[in-house]
C-alpha cells in the first residue's frame, strides 16, 4: 500500500470545523424559522385583510337596507298591533247581545188579551247570557191560562235563537179588577216572568222590528 500524505489535512479540518460551527448552524436555523414565521404571518395578514374587505362590503350592503328594514319592522309591528286590536274589537262587536231581535221576539208573543207593563233585562258580565223580568197582565176567561200561553210562546220563540232558555213564572196572581175585551168583562191576572238564556248564535244586526210587533204593541 502506497503511503499517501495529505498536506492540506489541517486546512481541511479547520474548514470542516467552521462548517460545523453550531452557532452558524443555529443562526441559519433561526433565519429559516424566521422566514417561515414571516411568511405565515404574511399569509394570515392577507387573510385578515380579505376578511376586513368582505366585512366592509357586507356592512355597506346592510347600511343600504337598514333604514328600509327598520321601517318595515316598525310597520310590521304597527300592522300586527292593529290586527290584534281589530280582532279583539271584532270579538267585542260580535259578542254583543242585540236587543232589537229580543224585543221583536217578545212582541211576537204578546197576544191581544195580554199587556206588558215592564221589561227589565240585563246582559251577564261575561256576555254569555241574559236575564230578564217581564211583567204584565193577561185578561181572559182563564187569565192564568192566557199568561201561561204567553210563557209557552215566549219559550218557543226564544228557543229558536238562544240556548238554555228558561222562562218561568216568578209571580202569577189574579187581579180583582176586570177589563173589557170585545164588550165582555174579563178577569185579569198579573204575572212576572223570569227569562234566562245563553247566547246560541250571534244574530247579526240588521233586521228591524216587524210591523206585526207594532200592531201587537199598539193593541
Amino acid at each position, binding site marked *: 500500500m502506497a503511503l499517501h500524505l495529505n498536506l492540506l489535512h489541517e486546512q481541511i479540518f479547520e474548514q470542516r470545523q467552521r462548517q460545523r460551527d453550531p452557532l452558524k448552524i443555529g443562526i441559519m436555523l*433561526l433565519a429559516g424559522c424566521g422566514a417561515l414565521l414571516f411568511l405565515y404571518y404574511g399569509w394570515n395578514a392577507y387573510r385578515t385583510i380579505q376578511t376586513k374587505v368582505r366585512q366592509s362590503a357586507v356592512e355597506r350592503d346592510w347600511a343600504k337596507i337598514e333604514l328600509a328594514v327598520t321601517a318595515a319592522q316598525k310597520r310590521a309591528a304597527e300592522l300586527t298591533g292593529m290586527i290584534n286590536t281589530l280582532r279583539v274589537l271584532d270579538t267585542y262587536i260580535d259578542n254583543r*247581545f242585540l236587543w232589537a231581535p229580543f224585543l221583536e221576539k217578545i212582541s211576537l208573543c204578546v197576544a191581544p188579551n195580554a199587556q206588558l207593563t215592564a221589561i*227589565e233585562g240585563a*246582559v251577564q258580565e261575561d256576555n254569555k247570557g241574559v236575564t230578564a223580568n217581564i211583567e204584565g197582565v193577561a185578561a181572559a176567561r182563564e187569565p192564568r191560562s192566557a199568561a201561561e200561553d204567553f210563557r209557552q210562546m215566549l219559550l218557543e220563540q226564544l228557543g229558536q235563537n238562544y240556548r238554555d232558555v228558561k222562562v218561568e213564572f216568578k209571580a202569577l196572581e189574579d187581579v180583582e179588577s176586570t177589563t173589557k175585551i170585545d164588550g165582555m168583562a174579563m178577569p185579569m191576572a198579573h204575572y212576572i216572568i223570569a227569562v234566562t238564556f245563553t247566547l246560541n248564535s250571534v244574530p247579526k244586526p240588521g233586521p228591524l222590528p216587524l210591523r206585526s210587533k207594532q200592531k201587537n204593541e199598539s193593541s
Partner: protein
Amino acid sequence: MSLPSLNQDQIKKMILSGFGFVFLLYIYFTFFLGPLNKSRQAAQAAIADVQHKIDTSKGEMAKTANLERQAKDMTAHFTALKALNPEGAPIAWFPPRIKGFFADQQIDKVMARLEGTTSFKEAELPGWTKYDWLIDLPRTDYASLGQAIAALENREPLLCIRKLNIHLTAQEPQFQQVTIAATTAIEKR
C-alpha cells in the same frame, strides 16, 4: 455524521439561543399572530352577524309586504271603526249625538249621562277605554223603541247595551219610559 464536541462557551451560547428562540416565538404568537387572528375572527363574527341580519331582514321585509297585503281590508275596517268616534272628550260629543240619533227616530227629550269609565282587560286594547252611559228615554212607544234600538245597534258597532228597562208611564199607558245602560269602546286620543 457525528456531532462535533462542543466546548463550554458554545453550550452556553446554544442554551441562550434556545431561550431567545422560545422568547421570540412567544412574542411572535402573542403580540403579532394572536392579535391578527383575533382581529380576523372578530371580523368574521361581525360578517356572520350582519349577514344573518341581512338574511333575516329579507324575510322580514317579505313578511311585512305580505302582512300589508293581508291587512289592506283590515286597515280600512279599523280606520272606519276609529272614525266612528270623533276627537275630543266623549262626554262632549256622545250625549248630543245620542240625543240627535233618537230625535231622528222620533224619540225626544233623550238624556245621556256618563256613568264611568273602565279600561279593557285585554292587553291588545291598551289605547281603548270603555265608557258606561245611562240613556233615559222618558217617552216612547215600543215599536219606535225597537226600531231605534235596531238602528242604534247597527249604526254603533262599538256600543253595547248592557241593561234595558222598559216601564209604562203612569199618565200615558200607551207610552213607555226606557232606561238604557250602554257601554261604548272609544279610543283614547
